């Protein structure tokens, strides 16, 4: 078997008395979509934040691309090839769609310290950016300011920015939220192909999407992983049905 790209070991994170992450060990293998499901407040976003380096775990380790990154800061993790999208869209609001995606390319491949050349006149950058924008389904909106985009378009912009990072790992926190059925099925198609490029840790409430996409599913309840398995295994798991799937129906 191939080495996992991402491994967390016994991660714990408490907010006061609340154990938001409680002994979480999971891994992500090349080529797979690993879905993370669980009720609201289960600690999914908190786990993503620890993997991305935005908050530090109280204990436990995170390994990514063959090294221990537990103490690395978020920017270093991104440069190692981690791309993430946010549950609540997070982009540069005054920038256009094109600027946002170019920013993402610049951050990944060049760094901030180019002082002279006009970045939006660099055809290699803008051509690549336009491709990612097209792939995320935002063609024609390149010159729109991010703040003027609809909610669904802003989600697509985040996907385009993540694509532009050409990462080794995608961390997607509820990418379908607010896309509508049509948008969700489009994005499902996109993510399906994306796993070849880099594995995806997918937090998602849209069960149709999760069951269609996931190679494996982990179920998080009160900060703990109560089950990990294939779609069939999770569907058949009685504990999961009462704890989560039943609740959701």
């Amino acid at each position, binding site marked *: 078997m191939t080495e996992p790209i991402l491994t967390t070991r016994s991660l714990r994170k408490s907010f006061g008395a609340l154990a938001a992450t409680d002994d979480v060990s999971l891994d992500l293998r090349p080529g797979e979509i690993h879905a993370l499901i669980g009720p609201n407040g289960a600690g999914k976003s908190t786990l993503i934040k620890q993997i*991305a380096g*935005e908050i530090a775990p109280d204990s436990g380790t995170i390994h990514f691309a063959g090294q221990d990154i537990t103490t690395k*800061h*978020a*920017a*270093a993790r*991104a*440069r190692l090839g981690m791309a*993430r999208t946010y549950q609540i869209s*997070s*982009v*540069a*609001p*005054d*920038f*256009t769609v094109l*600027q946002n995606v*170019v*920013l*993402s390319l*610049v*951050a*990944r491949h*060049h*760094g*901030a*310290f*180019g*002082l*002279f*050349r*006009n*970045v*939006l*006149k660099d055809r290699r950058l803008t051509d690549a950016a336009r491709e990612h924008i097209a792939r995320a389904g935002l063609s024609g909106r390149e*010159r729109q*300011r991010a703040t003027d985009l609809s909610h669904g378009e802003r989600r697509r912009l985040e996907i385009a*920015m993540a694509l532009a*990072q050409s990462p080794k790992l995608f961390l997607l926190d509820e990418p379908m939220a607010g896309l509508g059925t049509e948008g969700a099925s489009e994005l499902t198609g996109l993510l399906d192909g994306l796993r070849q490029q880099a594995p995806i840790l997918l937090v998602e409430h849209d069960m149709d999407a999760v069951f269609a996409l996931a190679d494996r599913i982990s179920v998080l309840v009160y900060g703990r992983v109560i089950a990990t398995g294939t779609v069939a295994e999770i569907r058949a798991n009685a504990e999961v049905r009462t704890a989560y799937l039943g609740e959701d129906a």
Partner: protein
Amino acid sequence: MIPERWLNLGVLTLLAAVPLVASLAGQPFTVTLATKIAIFALAATGLNIALGLGGLVSFGHAAFFGVGGYACGILASHARNYEPLSTWPWDIEGTTQMLTIWPIAVLLGGLAALVIGALSLRTSGIFFIMITLAFAQMLYYFAISWPTYGGEDGLPFYLRGDFPGLNTMDPIQFFGICFALLLAALFTFHRLHRARFGLSLEAARQNPERLRSLGIRPFHVRLLAFVISGMITALAGALYADLNRFVSPAMLSWHLSGELIVLIVLGGVGRLCGPVVGAAAYFLLEHWAGAASEYWQFWFGLLLLGVVLFARGGIVGALAKDHTHD
């Protein structure tokens, strides 16, 4: 609404043409006023990088203005007295050569900005404002209590620095020097703005968490912006010292920091010629309204309030379309 490019061209042409005509007409006072506008526009262009692009509300840019001014004043006064600045471990002589004074002023300004920035950029919002203010005040009180270079009374040095081939005591020639440096700074601002650095700096202003998760640490980008910003403002300080042939702690005072912010807000935050338009409006108003009424600052305050409330892009924003995103 007119394209911003035309507005910029018009403003800069006016700023060059008026003193030329005034000089031919034998009105040196107008030339001096234009020189003051150019120098303050230069200082504010420096601040515009930190404040306009980076959203860093530095209330301490007088520190860099003053460092540049004192660098010029101290070097010039030593050169005129034939007393070396130091004899050990190196012999350092004073100089009146602008081409030597400027790099020294810029370097010292950059160094001061590096130290102040490295410490104060760890904070944000109101804390950043207060910390930058505190650093500038420290330098201010230091200058006041340092008798070697005039202390509270300041340091006169009688003659401007020398520039090869020019008579710097001729107002219009000195204006030409200041105007050329202003153009160079505006060009620098423009290039930085459009480059990877400007993109990252503006992203750091809008959404630092996002920039970080894309792989760029906002702190590094801001620090470089702050250093470049301090360098340009220090250069303006050196010119201002030369204009007056005098430096005093007033160049380091918080009034001056506030004035630079006001110029930018008035002209247009983050707009290329915002500092130029702001400085022109401010000093012309001071000149005319100040002659007409003792309370001109009150009227100016009202104008500023109007701009802040009804014209967020300042005067430039009210007159010109924003082309940043083209």
